């Protein structure tokens, strides 16, 4: 339905107009490509050959416990209820929730760990399905952050800064690389709530917002229900045919306007209305899982048929990836286990382990894991000491920013390895620290973007996702 004709004055106007606004470089190409993805198809180049065409970021909001999932500490078993040595704790600042605690009793994980795959990667019994892909996972055990509370920490993870106002990773990626699909946005965010009765920390729109970048780069929230994308459905009484007819009228009138005013914005508006129309069929087609075979639902687990669950969102993530969506961000809430951690984390893993593994499996079988980067993790880690009462089979864990674990898999990542090392208490990093900025720099690198060169001038300063930091973590690259 594209009405742009390269020979017309209008097109020339609009094209040059965009360039003058955005200067040169990939930003300009991406901007044009968002409007017309074919326009710059040949010339749109990242800084260097990308390993990943897209990212699926499985954000586990609330901070999953590294001690109960990835960071195996067999030595802690003998330390049950002993005080965490002051020398380990150092001057670490504590949240107001445990700062008043008189003791810091060590809580070894109640979960069993076991080695998996050729690589012998240690994983907890909570992740039996993910463990089947052990040889594809690169578990980073030495990630760290400054923030100790959810909101600033999640904002830092997503935008490179604790206070809101900056663009999120997906917005940067979309600004830098544009869209591969003319019918869908380049950056999609999906949110699921925990099935168990747990404290689900809130999320903010800014976490997938575009900050000071133009708002066209912001993540589009996909929801379950009538309108996967806000305002997608025609109102009652307006069929697709009626919408098409109305759009033709609008376009005809807008073309008269364009003839008279020659404003490139008018041409852009005409194009945007066409894309809106295409989205009206592309998005429901995408969100409609009814044609997925029964085997797929079995694979993703019992929750997969319930719209809006993590499992259903994982299926959608695969479908978005197939359609060339650049940045797919899932959020699963509910990992904030200050108390009753064993029950809570079991429930969270019940929600996420099988669907995550099913997604990895499907991507692999379709050959898409080669050019899809999958990242799994939260905003910080959890403390080795118990918050609240410690018993043999129950404990809670407070926030812990000094080290935590995430995993990456797929495009350009060396699987079957552990990167980084923490001390015997999973309290401090002893080898290969990786900061949030390093993680983000590395993920951008895999997309073919030099994090130092993807900048945007705002308030006189050239901002980037990694602020003034960020080193590529070479050790995790294949």
């Amino acid at each position, binding site marked *: 339905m594209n009405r742009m004709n390269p020979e017309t004055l209008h097109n020339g106007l609009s094209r*040059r*107009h965009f*360039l*003058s*606004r955005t*200067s040169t*470089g*990939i930003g300009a190409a991406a901007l044009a490509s968002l409007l017309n993805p074919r326009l710059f198809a040949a010339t749109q180049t990242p800084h260097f050959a990308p390993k990943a065409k897209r990212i699926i970021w499985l954000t586990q909001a609330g901070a999953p416990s590294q001690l109960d999932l990835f960071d195996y500490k067999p030595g802690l078993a003998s330390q049950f209820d002993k005080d965490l040595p002051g020398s380990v704790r150092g001057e670490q*600042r504590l*949240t*107001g*929730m445990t700062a008043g605690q008189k003791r810091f009793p060590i809580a070894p994980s109640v979960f069993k760990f076991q080695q998996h795959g050729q690589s012998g990667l240690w994983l907890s019994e909570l992740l039996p399905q993910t463990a089947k892909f052990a040889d594809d996972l690169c578990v980073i055990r030495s990630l760290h952050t400054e923030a100790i509370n*959810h*909101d600033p920490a999640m904002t830092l993870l997503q935008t490179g800064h604790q*206070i*809101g*106002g900056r663009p999120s990773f997906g917005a940067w990626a979309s600004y830098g690389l544009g869209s591969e699909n003319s019918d869908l946005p380049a950056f999609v965010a999906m*949110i699921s709530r925990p099935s168990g*009765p747990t404290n689900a*920390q*809130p999320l*903010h*729109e800014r976490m997938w917002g575009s900050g000071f970048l*133009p*708002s066209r780069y912001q993540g589009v*929230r996909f*929801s379950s229900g009538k309108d996967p*994308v*806000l*305002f*997608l459905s025609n*109102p*009652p*009484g307006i*069929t697709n045919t009626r*919408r098409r*007819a*109305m759009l033709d*009228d609008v376009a005809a*009138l807008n073309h*008269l*306007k364009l003839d008279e*005013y020659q*404003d490139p*914005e008018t041409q852009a*508006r*005409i194009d*945007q*209305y066409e*894309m*809106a129309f295409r*989205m009206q069929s592309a998005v429901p087609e995408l969100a409609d899982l009814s044609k997925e075979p029964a085997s797929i639902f079995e694979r993703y687990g019992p929750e997969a048929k319930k719209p809006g669950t993590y499992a259903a969102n994982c299926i959608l993530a695969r479908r978005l990836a197939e359609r060339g969506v650049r940045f797919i961000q899932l959020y699963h809430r509910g990992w904030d286990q200050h108390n009753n951690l064993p029950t809570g984390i079991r429930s969270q893993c019940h929600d996420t382990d099988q669907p995550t593994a099913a997604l990895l499996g499907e991507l692999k079988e379709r050959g898409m894991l080669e050019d899809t980067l999958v990242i799994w993790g939260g905003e910080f880690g959890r403390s080795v000491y118990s918050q609240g*009462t410690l*018993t043999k089979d129950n404990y809670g864990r407070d*926030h812990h920013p000094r080290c935590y674990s995430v995993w990456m898999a797929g495009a350009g990542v060396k699987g079957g390895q552990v990167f980084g090392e923490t001390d015997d208490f999973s309290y401090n990093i002893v080898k290969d620290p990786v900061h949030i900025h390093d993680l983000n720099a590395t993920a951008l690198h895999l997309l073919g973007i030099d994090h130092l060169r*993807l*900048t*945007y*001038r705002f308030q*006189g300063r050239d901002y980037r996702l990694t602020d003034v930091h960020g080193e590529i973590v070479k050790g995790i690259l294949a």
Partner: protein
Amino acid sequence: MLTLHHSSPLFLALLATLAVAAPQAAEPLRYNRDIRPILSDNCFSCHGFDPKHREAELRLDTAEGATADHDGVRAIVPGDVEKSELWVRLNSNDQDEVMPPPKSHKKVTAAQKEVLRSWIQQGAKYEPHWAFVPLAPVAMPKTKQDGWARNDLDRFILARLESEGLAPSAEAARETLIRRASLDLTGLPPTLAEVDAFLADTSPQAFEKVVNHLLKSPHYGERMAVDWLDAARFADTNGYQVDRDRELWPWRDWVISAFNRNLPFDQFTIEQIAGDLLPQPTLEQRIATGFHRNHMMNEEGGIIAEEFLAEYTADRVETTAAVWLGQTFNCCRCHDHKFDAFTQRDFYALKAFFHNVPERGVGLYSNPIRTNSPPFVNLPAPDIEAKISGLNASTKAVNEQLTALAAKSSAGVEEWARRVATATVAWEPLELRAASGGDAPPRVDAAARVVQVGPQETRANTIKIAARLPVGRFTALRFECATTESVASFQWSELKVTRAGEKKQPLKMRAIAVGDSLAATETVKALDNDRKTRVAISVKPDQAAQAVFELEQVLIIDNTTAEIEIELGVENANGPSRWRVLSTVAEPHVLAPTHVLTLARKEEAKRSEAEKKQLAAFRLSQQPENRKLSDQLSELKKQVTAAEAEIPTTLVMEEMKEARPTFMLMRGAYDKPGEQVTAATPAVLPALEAGLPHNRLGLAKWLVSPQNPLTARVTVNRFWQQVFGTGLVKTSEDFGAQGAAPSHPELLDWLAGEFIRSGWDVKHLMKLMVTSATYRQQSQLTAVLHDRDLENRLLARGPRFRLPAEMLRDQSLAASGLLVGKIGGPSVKPYHPPGLYEQVVAQRDNPSATYRQGSGDDLHRRSLYTYWKRSVPNPGMMLFDAPFRETCTLRRTRSNTPLQALNLMNDPTYVEASRFLAQRMMQEGGSAVDARLTHGFRLLLARVPKPAELAILRAAYERARADFENDAAAAKALLAVGEAKSEAPTNPAELAAFTSIASTLLNLDEAFTKE
């Protein structure tokens, strides 16, 4: 923007087309205009103002630095390019020598090198940064064309156009003009009466009359407020974590009123920064200080207050610097500015002005949730105040009855005291038979008569215990709780004791304190039928808890044992708690806490007066009549509290008597204090005048001092941006070295001077711009202007750009007749997609976990009254580039996206507005189809459709009508969208067809656009 200095052919081509940036060949190069942007972008981060990051001890931002001798080498030798090391380094092929160094990713283009070469050749004259140069009288430029300029502003525009060889465009059509001015000055489209009056007015002052009328409209203040709300980061919630509500709308209303009253901008500034420090400040002046309480406030459990206090004060510094000075102070929070002459000390010296507010770093909440954290002020609320004084009168009456009762009761005290002194009180544990409920089933130890609850209760659980009472006359029950673990804690929210067979009649009890039991004021929370009030209990093996409840009527069990059911509401339990329930048959009214018992046992003669009073008070507290009156009192107190909570409040600034000390924070970190600083204005700007206090009031007066070179320039530029779409300085938020140079420097200075001379008269300034010939031009783009000035910086045509979010919605509401014109008041909740909050917000402790849509007028108020939740702002606003309002925003982007199209086509807001616009077309537009279509077109766009447009609309209408006549159900469904009821149509297909035409109109590019 990204990598501006690629030497790609694209960029060179661009440079050639950007007329604004290209210096005139004949003119000498000017440092500020031509040189500084190149040096600032490429050199200053290592050779600039910040000494900590300065390389090779070389600075290029001053003439002294650039020409200084470094062992015989000078970066710049004025007049001698070849001897200038700068030139040599720029052109070096040696990777280690060449500047800027390759790893910096900066690059000076060939064209820029040529500019630098000529400048050195011409003598390398430096200028102070233009924005810091004091305002001076500006000479009127000479123009060739006479008669075009309508005021002095136009002369600057015309002179520049003439120097560029361009001519202004013709004046726009009257319909275009009045729509443009109405949108700019009131944010609403003109009414047809206004359009017709203007079209009919043949006087030369016709347009000026329109403008005067618009400036007097009460909607003028609403339009002007919108940009200021962005600047002030105004929102209805606190912004972090749970993102609870706050009340600051009275401040928003103050802003609207200030613009409508045309409060001079200097006073507007003083009252908002320091209204509370004015002599005898009025309530209004205190409300104005809400400006600096608009920042986000963290309420997350476990945050460190000091850390966030540092954020709030930093936000105030950055916002003040951006809004009034056009400077990016956020850089200086951690280090000296790299591009501008501001130091880290300047930042903290400014912070000291804002650091003396009696506030906490954490949002403060009481129960029930009161939205505002101190300091705040109450607003007058006569109705509520009347209600409160009525309640107070009732309270007084009850108190009098209580006094009378006390006199009566004191007579029997001695007799009662003897009974208390001699009574024996024995407690027998109840037989426990079974228990249920809880995360895990409670365990009953029948032999020990103990039930164990827990170890965890994460939900709000009700533990049901079946117990048995022997024969007897029971007067009280005692609940005991202990643990075998090191500690157990839980919250006890409810208690009900029911005799079997009397299911719905729990025993009436009252909480009393006996011996070591918990205070009755605590345990009463278990009896109040409210799960939200809870007794927090923590027990250890050697530290049990007891609670005693007296039965209001003696429980008589004759003949045989009685079955009793006990319900305990318990939640947030951590650790196992072991419960026993005991009963007593002691005489009524003899149970007393230890201290009362001691007194009762004392001989009457030996009791002091105070002790006698204590006894009498306790005795009184046991009288049933007293209980009734006390209940009345507490009910009245509750009502007073509830009424007080209804009094609107608004956040304000206050000054502590003793200033909080302010320290430099190393790398900006709250826990790394450095040297102490005192309040001072930035060193590079004119000093605070002698006699001004070193507090916010002094700062405010300094900001609007005529000596301040920035405030007037920055402010007029922002108003210019509002009207013309782009500021004279494009980076309206940044007047520093990295900001854009002004397109018309002399005009900017003249306007700033005119603004001050007029007494900071905002309406005067607006009128000057809007009545200018520049503004009145038509906005068509021509091929010449496309090539020469696509961005319209030279203003050879009128402004044409997309409407801001608020205006788009308000325009639809106004044209359809739905708009409710009421000004001010609490924010409202119009249509909003369902389910948007639930996915992301916290459910616990969150009174606004769900969006509760308003009804009636609330659905159709102007958009600046729409509830602004920072974590999930109204999507209809966000899709059109409204900011999150988390930090100060001085310039919105203007995007053009498919999601905007979906919003305007499908949001019930616009579908409903289409129906009402259709209704107006049919009711007011006559009977002919063309006339009706024309009427709708005019209501929205002010002008009459052209024949070609009308033909398209007519065909569309005929098609839609035929279509809906064949599909009555579709017509009915479309007409049912939205809560506002239109008059029952005689022909639904006709109304549906006009509705779909109205929707077409609302979606036109022209409707999106100020033209």
